[in-house]
């Protein structure tokens, strides 16, 4: 039923040419298998999990607001055992908010705590299942209740990563139109209250472009997840490094992304704000999601997502293919390391000066 197109000839040629260039550039020691390090990758056991998460909403400088990971408990729904994974998160830069990684079949409970002393933020997720009481909207819209956290009353949102919800989805504030406590700020989703949930498919399989060819890879083979939010003026980034036990690192604005050569990485491109952007990478190609079409750019609009998995084989630049936004610096590097110690570049500047 799915019409998997063959890669266009021009892409094949480009890929071949690139391969040759790369082959010429690669020193021989670079042929190192990173799959040997794959002992602590994404866990996909038989047991469904409950993700019991406490997220705070805090005010940053320059009228920006962010989600902050306070506590993250993973409960095994079969044997009831729990693991606290809060320490895997990084609180240095709070935009985008913490990424949640779950499997199809899991449940997520997020208790949102308003730590600002004003306002009425919420969480509305894309992709997952939830009842109308976890919509994250206000009563005038959902006809049921105001679903947001006041400074004194937290709100708990319950999601279900049911069948058909696999994917990488944004979640964000959705209490547009409500100004409380005299502070007039609408649209918290545009000033920092956004993040992602990655729901890995229960069959453990992902389409990927490996050595120029569409291939199925296992979720367990992913070495890194990059989350890149395309915002109106910048990219906001974060990563999860499964070679380091699933360590989350906040990468800030227009970050340099690093990966080991030959490793498998997933780009979770999300978008928020008002503008459409032409997300483009030179030297890297991928599969248009849900197809076998090889592309290296995609016009993305607010809250759409674009997710692809590749085997890493060359340095690249990612950018918004718009002269105006490029002048504003809307680009970053994708840097391939030798495969021994891949690590992230911390962006210039500290948490709140970004």
């Amino acid at each position, binding site marked *: 039923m799915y019409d998997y197109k063959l890669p266009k000839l021009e892409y094949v040629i480009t890929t071949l040419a690139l391969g040759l260039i790369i082959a010429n550039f690669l020193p021989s020691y670079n042929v190192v298998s990173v799959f040997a390090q794959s002992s602590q990758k994404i866990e996909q056991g038989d047991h469904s999990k409950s993700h019991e998460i406490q997220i705070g909403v805090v005010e940053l400088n320059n009228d920006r607001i962010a989600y902050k990971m306070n506590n993250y408990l993973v409960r095994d729904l079969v044997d009831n055992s729990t693991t606290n994974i809060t320490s895997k998160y990084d609180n240095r830069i709070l935009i985008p908010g913490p990424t949640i990684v779950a499997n199809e079949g899991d449940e997520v409970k997020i208790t949102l705590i308003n730590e600002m002393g004003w306002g009425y933020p919420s969480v509305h997720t894309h992709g997952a299942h939830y009842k109308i009481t976890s919509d994250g909207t206000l009563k005038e819209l959902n006809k049921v209740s105001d679903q947001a956290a006041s400074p004194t009353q937290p709100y708990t949102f319950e999601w279900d990563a049911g069948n058909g919800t696999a994917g990488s989805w944004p979640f964000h504030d959705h209490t547009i139109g409500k100004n409380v406590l005299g502070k007039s700020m609408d649209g918290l989703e545009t000033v920092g209250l956004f993040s992602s949930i990655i729901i890995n498919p229960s069959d453990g399989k992902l389409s990927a472009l490996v050595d120029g060819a569409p291939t199925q890879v296992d979720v367990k083979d992913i070495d890194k997840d990059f989350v890149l939010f395309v915002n109106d003026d910048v990219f906001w980034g974060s990563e999860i490094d499964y070679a380091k036990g699933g360590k989350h690192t906040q990468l800030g604005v227009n970050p340099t992304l690093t990966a080991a050569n030959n490793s498998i990485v997933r780009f979770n491109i999300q978008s928020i704000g008002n503008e459409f952007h032409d997300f483009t990478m*030179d030297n890297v190609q991928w599969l248009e*999601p*849900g197809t076998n079409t090889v592309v290296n750019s995609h016009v993305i609009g607010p809250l759409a997502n674009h997710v692809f998995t590749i085997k890493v084989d060359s340095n690249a630049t990612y950018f918004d293919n718009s002269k*105006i936004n490029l002048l504003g610096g809307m680009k970053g590097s994708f840097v391939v390391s030798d495969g021994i110690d891949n690590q992230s570049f911390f962006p210039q500047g500290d948490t709140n000066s970004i």
Partner: protein
Amino acid sequence: MFEIFNQTRKWQVKKTSILYVVVASLILTSFLMPSGIIKGTNAFTPIPQTVNNDGKIFDTLSSDVSSNVTNEFRDLNSSSAAVHDIAIKEQVLPDGEPAYKMIKHIVNNSMDVTGNYSDLATIPGPAIVINDGDIVHVAIQNLDGNITHEDFVAPHPGTFVYQDDELGDRGLYGVVIVNPKDGMTEALVDGKITTIPLDEIDKDVLLFMVGSTFWGMEISKNGTQTPLWTNPVPVAQENQKIRFHVMGIGPSSNPNGHSHTFHLHAHRWVDPGTSNIIDVKELHPGTSHVFVVDAGDGVGPGDWQFHCHVFAHMEAGMMSTFKVLAANTTLTENTTTLPSIPGASPYHNFATFSVNDEPGKWFKNIKGDISNTGSESLAIINKSGTVNFMMDGTNGVHTITSIIYPKNATHMPFNQMLAYKGGAIIKLEDPGLYVFACSLHPFMLAAVVVDDPNTKGLDLGEELTLVNGATIPTNSEIALRLLRTFFIATSPSNWQDYSNTSKPWSVSYPDVDARITNGSVVNVKDVLESTYGQNLTLTPLSNPITPAVGEIWIDTQFEKTAGKDKPGTATAINGTTWNVSKKVSLPQIDMNNPHNMWTDRDQDLIYQTQWFDNRTTIFNRTTGELIKDIQVGDDPSHVMTGTKTDDLYIALNGEDGVTVISSNPEFELQKFILLQPPASPSTHPHGHWMSADDKYMVTPDEHTGTATVYDMEQDKIIGKVKTGVSPVAVGMIPDGSKSYVADFFDSTISVIDTANATLLKKINLLANYDPISGNVTGPVGFLPIQTPVSPDGQYMVTANTGGTITILDTDTDQIIKDMPCDPGCHGVNFGAKKGGGYYAYVFSIFQMRL
């Protein structure tokens, strides 16, 4: 010779700068790819355009019905390919919008299916439902009575937008739904991608994304079409299969397109042609997106919101809900599906404004002039009526901002966090006067009187709240003054005409009774005429005795000329003779609302911003010849050059910063100075100023109510100063030490210590004005705009929209004088006087008087 900017020009990022971090970090060494070279960059994100301007309506389908296609469409003559004879008619709805009505639809010369369609002209127009391979002959009766014919063949299954080239953003659009012959369709059921028979679809819901409004229609299982109008509520029962057809309409008139993202809460679907599961989809103009949802699958019943996820569109009202009822909902009578709930319709208590670049008619009620004043910017509806705005005639970005509304009115204030392309829709519940403006171009005005038909006179309300939070009674002088300003600004026939000063100036006011404070009823025309007079004598123009040095250049922004659609010229005056010596209109680029200009170091060139567009233009000062037209970003407002570099610094009023273009002769975009940290609220700077030593640039950030002090040498923001509401222009002492910001809506001047980015003082230009009685006891400046400081640093001169000129002594920061000006008094700058000293030239945009 001139060179039009080449969009496909290669643009390169220096490899060294991209890789700097990498190299410095010493992590990468041996195998750096020559990456970081970005080629073929577009000026803006390219938005695919589907609909052609070919004069045809059904141009997204194959129009080739001739015999030579019969090979391709082999079923043409077989019994399975039907032939449809269709007649549709264009008709004007009560709000002034055009719409299509189905007159006749006959299948295979025998079966009349006209009864499936609404018997009204509807927006969207009738959905023509056919099968793959069918042939369609359509007769279209145009508004002028002419009939045109189009034929098409359904090329393959899908939903195809049909749209009029001219009025296709406003109401003349619809779809042709081509069903596959096999009668099967893809669906996501119980979370799995599957194929179901079309006859298991419980209803088709059509949603057209237009401006910032959804226009809907539904097609029931038996084929009956029901218009659902604006922001409707489609209704389904849990686990019913609903086929959504979502269409992007635009406005497509904008040169860089205008797209939407559709999102439905708590539902997922298959992105057609892929196995990707999505819940948001980009809709570019003229495109459709069709998917089947399993209503409430995995989430249950609820009022599930759907909306455009472009944030400003959401704020502007582009949302509604999909009502999913429990599966066991009792159905009334014999219906198998529940009817959806229509939204507000143009047939009832509805007004539509087209937003465009036309002087005076920026917000144009498409019913035209309803008050006999020449103003087309007024609408009258009853309480709980709906107002719809559509940015279909502008190349710029705007906001739809309530600047006046009845105190405590529902849904007020209405605003967006940033300027955008789109529209707005709002329900006005409470009686009274509402005035909307674009917050970037605040003379763009729309007034809506919401009337309670049970009271005498048109209701203006007891008290009105202004954009800066102040509340005034409707019987106050300031309310009258605002009303008068509205009828002058929005009616070019009410502008003073200095080309014939023997004719007295009269202003047409509406001859209508209005209900104001305490329920008293007054005649608007009588009150305005008795307060401000009528048939006023215009003082004949005269020239100064002492000549000026050189030329005086003025942006005659609203001047219309032959040979182009958009308004505006640049005008030069000879400073010796005081005669107009040059007019530059640049029809070859359709120069659009030229707003502010500067010159190069040698004064050979003029740099010209196009405020309602995204371009800045360079022309030869002597010959008027076009040299370059550069896309710089949305709504470029003011331009200056650096004294050291001669580079151009252009404030982008529709964006968040200032763009820099290299000096003559390259004129390449070389930098964008962001005036806010990422994800902070949008600044929208308007009329910046730079110090003579290229040390400081101060921008008035219209949207955030701040002035940003930027260090040009160190390329960093020194600080931000809170100003009044809507700062529009900056003046500066020559040594840069002190800056003045005109706060438009607050009628104040914020005085800033530039180096420390601190507020020294706020000067209230209305201190000598009693807003209730109108008594004036000293100099008054109502709605200040441009505010430069004289080259000797001694005086600041401010042009006030309300019709005065304020002069301030910069030593004491005290107002020392005010002078009369015209309504729409706007631009000021200084020029040398022969023999020494300076003139301040003050320009009134509505009357084009200097």
